[in-house]
């Protein structure tokens, strides 16, 4: 493993979440670092929502309260804003959130057929979560990967050119943990995790800005 892979793996693992649904100690530190990036505190609202979602897999009521407290805004403003965005989940979701694109390119490429087979394979319909809390199925608008239509996202990771068979393998791999290094736990985003470095020996924002460049898009 290269140093970069090591770094990525480290920031993309789910940390031990706190029991009360709020931020862990490390999360709280990250939250403060995120807030310090903005001239106005409330600008950090969405990054903080992602950070909290990364800790629990969804946005708990307690973490919304903590965010409100940190940003000196009301809880209604936090929950109101969070409810606007599909990527923020206000209810518990499975370990893997599968978002299937059904916009035009994917639709022509057989997205609805794929969706149907997924529903059949997982035994749930769109918007539901499997009983073992492994998979949540969502219908998504264009994911920007039209070249690989029909495509879907699993926890913000892209998978394209799928059909029923390919999806079956994907699900099997996800369930068996074969994709553990590729697909991070739901909600964990490198974008909010790399605010300051966790790599030993490196410190603070200098390291963070370096990794920003080296990490690139994905």
């Amino acid at each position, binding site marked *: 493993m290269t140093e970069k892979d090591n770094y990525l793996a480290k920031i993309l693992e789910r940390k031990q979440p706190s029991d009360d649904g709020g931020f862990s100690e490390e999360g709280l530190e990250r939250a403060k670092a995120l807030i310090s990036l903005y001239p106005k505190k409330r600008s950090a609202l969405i990054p903080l929502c992602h950070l909290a979602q990364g800790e629990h897999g969804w946005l708990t009521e307690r973490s919304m309260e903590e965010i409100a407290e940190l940003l000196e805004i*009301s809880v209604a403003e936090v929950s*109101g804003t969070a409810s606007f965005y599909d990527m923020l989940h206000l209810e518990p979701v499975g370990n893997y959130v599968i978002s299937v694109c059904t916009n035009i390119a994917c639709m022509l490429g057989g997205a609805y057929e794929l969706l149907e087979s997924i529903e059949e394979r997982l035994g749930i319909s769109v918007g539901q979560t499997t009983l073992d809390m492994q998979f949540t199925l969502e219908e998504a608008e264009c994911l920007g990967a039209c070249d690989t239509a029909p495509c879907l996202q699993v926890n913000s990771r892209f998978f394209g050119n799928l059909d029923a068979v390919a999806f079956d393998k994907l699900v099997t791999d996800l369930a068996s943990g074969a994709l553990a290094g590729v697909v991070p736990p739901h909600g964990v985003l490198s974008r909010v995790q790399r605010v300051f470095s966790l790599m030993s020996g490196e410190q603070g924002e200098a390291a963070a800005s370096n990794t920003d460049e080296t990490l690139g898009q994905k």
Partner: protein
Amino acid sequence: MTDTVKNDSHDIAGAEAQPDSDTVSLIIDGRQVTAHKDELLIEAAERHGIFIPRFCYHPHMDPVGMCRMCLVEVSSPRGFSLQPSCYLKVQENMEVKTSSEKAKRAQEGVLELLLINHPLDCPVCDKGGECPLQDQDMSHGPGESRFIEEKRHFDKPVEIGPLTYLDRERCIQCARCTRFAAEIAGDPQIDFAGRGDQTIVATSPTQPFDSYFSGNTVQICPVGALTSKAYRFKSRPWDLEQAETTCMLCSVGCRQAAQSSAGALVRYLGIDDVNVNQSWLCDKGRYSFEALQNGRILAPLARHQGRLEPVRWADALADVTAGIRSALSKGGNDQIAVIGGSKFVNEDAYLWARLAKGVLGSELVDASMGDDFNAELALALPRATINETVNAKTVVLVSADPKEELPVLYLRLYPQLAKGKINLIEITPTRTSLSSLAKARIDVRPGELFSVIDDLLDTTKDTAGTIKDALQLQNVREMLTLSDTGSQEDRGQGVVFVIGRSNLAESPVYLEESVKLIAAKMAKAKFLPALRRGNIFGALDMGLAPNLLPGRVNKDYGDIVRRKWGTLPEANSHGTTEILSRCAKGEVSVLILLASDPLSDFFDQSLVEKAFENTPFIVALASHEDPSAMRADVVLPICHLGEMNGTVTNIEGRVSTVNQKVMPPALARQPWIIASDIARLLDEPFGLSSLEEISSEISEIALAYKGVSLSSLRASSRRDGVVVPLGVTGVSIKGSKRTTALLDPIATPGIASAEEQGAPMKSGYIPESFITAGETDEAGRTSLKERSLVSIDTLTLKGKQDMGLGVMPEPKSDKHTLRLVLKRDLYDMSTTVLNSPTMTPLVDEQEISLSKADAERFSLTEGSLAKIAANDQQIVAKVKIDSLLRAGVAVLKANKEIVGSYDAALTKSEDDKATEDSGDQITTRAELLIDAFGLVTEVSIEPHDSAKESR
């Protein structure tokens, strides 16, 4: 082609308007009009009689351009285009078409869109009949919908707060409620959630909408989405009758419309009085109408063999006069004491003052119930108006939290503070609801106020003993204009001190002396005395206070009054504390309670208890069965707000009318009639037989009230009242661009609709010229200025020197005790709250706030029960750890009796029978701990453990 012609006319108009740079001229619907530079187009049009439909626009909130209803055609370099007139400032040469074909089509389109998802359940909707959506659909809508699909559905209704329901299907997303909550009230507990057609107004899952001002969102909702629990399904707008009146629950005196149906009050709505409440009300005021129907005393009661029984009025009054006669025969003027009167209108207060001082010859008269600092001083200070306060350069809060005691004053201050328009300095023992917006905050431990103020004002001091942070000190002095090198006389220019008692457990002497010091050192500073009781300023102005006579004069200037009233008592006067202690010593034969309830409303419970025990004859004028009335020997039923007429005087000295809307229950009478009857029975009749006659006597002998009478206040141009004395404290509206009385039926829906039913309603700005012109002649005004006001010089400046100690008495500091702060909150166990079913559940339980360090020191944890003792009394309260509280201070709330949810905890720890047998009464009433004559109250505290007690 036509454009060119019009542009030409623009240029000409522009040239004409040039001289005055503050105005611009524009053309609206072909009419040349002028407008203020920063005025919004929708406002300019309205001022010139052109109504543009609107939903989201509200005259007292910032524009958002949310609903698009006000689209009009506006000229631009690229021709006419549709623009929202509520979001557009007027510009020179602008040309506007508000009802062109294009503008009309746009407005119709917007309305059709808004109605697509509106349920049209008008027949069962509370707003139906006074609904801006209904009204404007009739006036500006297409009249027909092309939408045939299924409308969206939500659960109806959601209880978003303890007083408010939300029906999300009806919402048109105008953002009035969310903007009000965030911008005006500073309680952003509601916000938009969701997206697209699923956008809803929502609270967070954990925090209900329990703002003190939630009722305003119901009032300004332009559809029936928000409804109040108290009014829901009570009446239809066309069944309502209405009278314009002034709220008497606190001294802000909000103008409101009292609306009744079938002879009962069903709703109060705020009226847009730009000087006072700007159409807002607090929830306590808004929902207090319920108290009229509950717990009322219906007939005079007299005590026979220990029990209060209904009697005839004649018998009750005969009992009272007999009691008074026997007291007077004992000799000495101080046999009769009168407490209360702040719930009376001015006319009632005046006649009771005349009865007490002129007929009974007593100087034991006080309306302030001990929560003032010195009535004479309060009236003598150069008074700021509310508008002056919220437009001041610097506001210094040396009072209780305005949100708890004077809610609408807070509402006026908050938006100004949030926009950074005023500097706020707090000098209070605990944080207030405005602390987060304060530029500087000085934590004052009880007993240290005078030293802090002294250090602050003494600019020669570099390092202050009491104020630790030197940087902050410098900053504060700058904001107070003390660092200015200018002359001494200009000190305090633009500074307003809001002064009141922030702590009922501390002697008022600290505040009194501090205020004198400030007044002496800062010549130009103005004051807003934050006495909170309803019409307390009216009662003080009418002489229901120690040493004061009607018209804001003290006894030294009492010649005019003396001529009318005859001899006046010469003895020195005393406040409520002194009166009660005389009662407690058995020196008073008759105690008359004027709609006051000292048993639940005075800060030294033991003193009141003793006073009640040792006074042989107690007469109570009461509207409700409050604890004090139920202990009296004779109870005389009186009217409540809504059932009486008269005038009231608010915190800034504004006199406005109170108007009757419903009949008083059964045999209740207005208090002046009772005073008049008693005087007649004592063979000293006043010869006054109506409110109008009393009112004209007031304007005749009360100097400050010259030119102000009930009938003159009924003139439509004076509906919002006038600040007395006329011509001395002018009405100034700094920064207000409003110049004419406006009525926006969309801003205040219910009121306008009621007006259409025939009830007169108008409100707005009183031009200053009106007040000064022709009302008082020049000579009259000059003499008024000289003679009526008690001047600050007449009050000796005690300060440090007179104490002979070099400093104010400072209680000896004990590391192991805590100094108590007793403060009020809005929903206490007052008669109004307890008799209003929707508000009663809002009374929260007693709790003691402690700093983290102190809690640890006494091994107390959050939520545990603590035993608090002082002055041989003890109470129980739940512990709340307040990380922002300074150490050495404990905070309790006033007037909290019930243990409520403590019950479970207490019974659990008391299953031991021995505890019950020991007879220990567990109470949470903090007033038990306080000694009214003490300087500060020091409490000892330990964990509540009844097992240990029983040992």
